[in-house]
């Protein structure tokens, strides 16, 4: 099954802006869908659809910032590029603090928007690829027996087979067999790869994210 093509969702209450943005985005071969209200977009929003959102800040009803917060509440990762004719510093800060991908002030050059849209689509593709990879790793972890999972946890903590055997009350040879099964089921070609998988699946604490001491 092929993944759906990315779509640029335009949410702006101004029909002229919607129309010109749709034309601009289609002119570079991208799919575009436009909505006049944030609520309309949210109703149609499908998290499995790759893409990005070009979102007006000021709209009747739900504002762009409120729509962004609703997307956050839903756990949506779709990148949002804000566009506004009335932008100021606090507004830009708030949007960026809530995870906006970018914030562009009208009037802008067509190419500036297209550049940002392309980068937003790249970000979305990266995020989706990372999710898929993580889901695959989690599936593999689910396929491990409880004992194999325990061995994996200890192996990825850097413990030697002998130490693991002593901790689990089994022989070193038994640990080696479990370890081989773990490597095979996880499709890990090296201990480093297994550690990376465990980190990505958050099976062990990530030293890269620890606070400063």
């Amino acid at each position, binding site marked *: 099954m092929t993944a759906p093509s990315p779509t640029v969702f335009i949410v702006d209450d101004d029909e002229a802006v919607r129309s010109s943005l749709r034309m601009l985005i289609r002119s570079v071969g991208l799919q575009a869908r436009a909505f006049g209200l944030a609520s309309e977009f949210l109703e149609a929003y499908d998290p499995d659809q790759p893409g990005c959102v070009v979102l007006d800040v000021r709209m009747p009803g739900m504002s762009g910032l409120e729509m962004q917060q609703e997307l956050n509440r839903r756990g949506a990762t779709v990148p949002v590029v804000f566009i506004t004719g009335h932008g100021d510093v606090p507004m830009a800060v708030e949007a*960026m603090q809530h995870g906006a991908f970018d914030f562009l002030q009208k009037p802008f050059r067509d190419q500036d928007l297209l550049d940002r849209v392309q980068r937003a689509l790249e970000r979305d593709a990266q995020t989706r690829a990372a999710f898929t990879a993580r889901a695959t790793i989690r599936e593999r972890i689910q396929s491990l027996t409880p004992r194999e999972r325990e061995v994996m946890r200890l192996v990825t903590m850097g413990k030697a087979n002998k130490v693991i055997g002593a901790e689990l009350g089994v022989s070193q040879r038994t640990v080696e067999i479990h370890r081989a099964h773990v490597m095979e089921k996880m499709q890990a070609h090296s201990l480093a790869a297994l550690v990376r998988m465990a980190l990505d699946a958050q099976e062990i604490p990530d030293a890269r994210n620890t606070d400063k001491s």
Partner: protein
Amino acid sequence: MQRPPGTHPVAAASRERPQSRRQHPVLVVDDGGAHAAEIERLLTTMRIPWEPCAPGVGTAEAVRREAACLIAPFAPNDDGARALIETVHRIAPGLAVIVVIDDPDVAATVAAMRLGAHAVIEGKALAAGLLHQVAPLLQND
């Protein structure tokens, strides 16, 4: 010229206040400018503990200690914000950097935020914007 915290009159005053719990201080990059002085005055007024640190190496040293956040004023068109944010994130990942700029446009604000600034405050809006950004970052031991 950087004033050491012990001799800084406002910092000394902030340390004299009785506090039931120790709060991580806000670090203020003190370049001797008007914004730094205003930030320090506002923090003192709001009874938020703060410590000055010198720009450059002094800041890099200061962020090795526990802090609530770092506030750094910049002159217009000063491209030092990038270097500062990168340095802080390398030495103290997770420490929020609040950048104060005179009359920043939206593009400059977004650029700073994309670099990893926690917030950008306009120099002229310090009184209104400082507490709003700093308060959520304050932690008690």
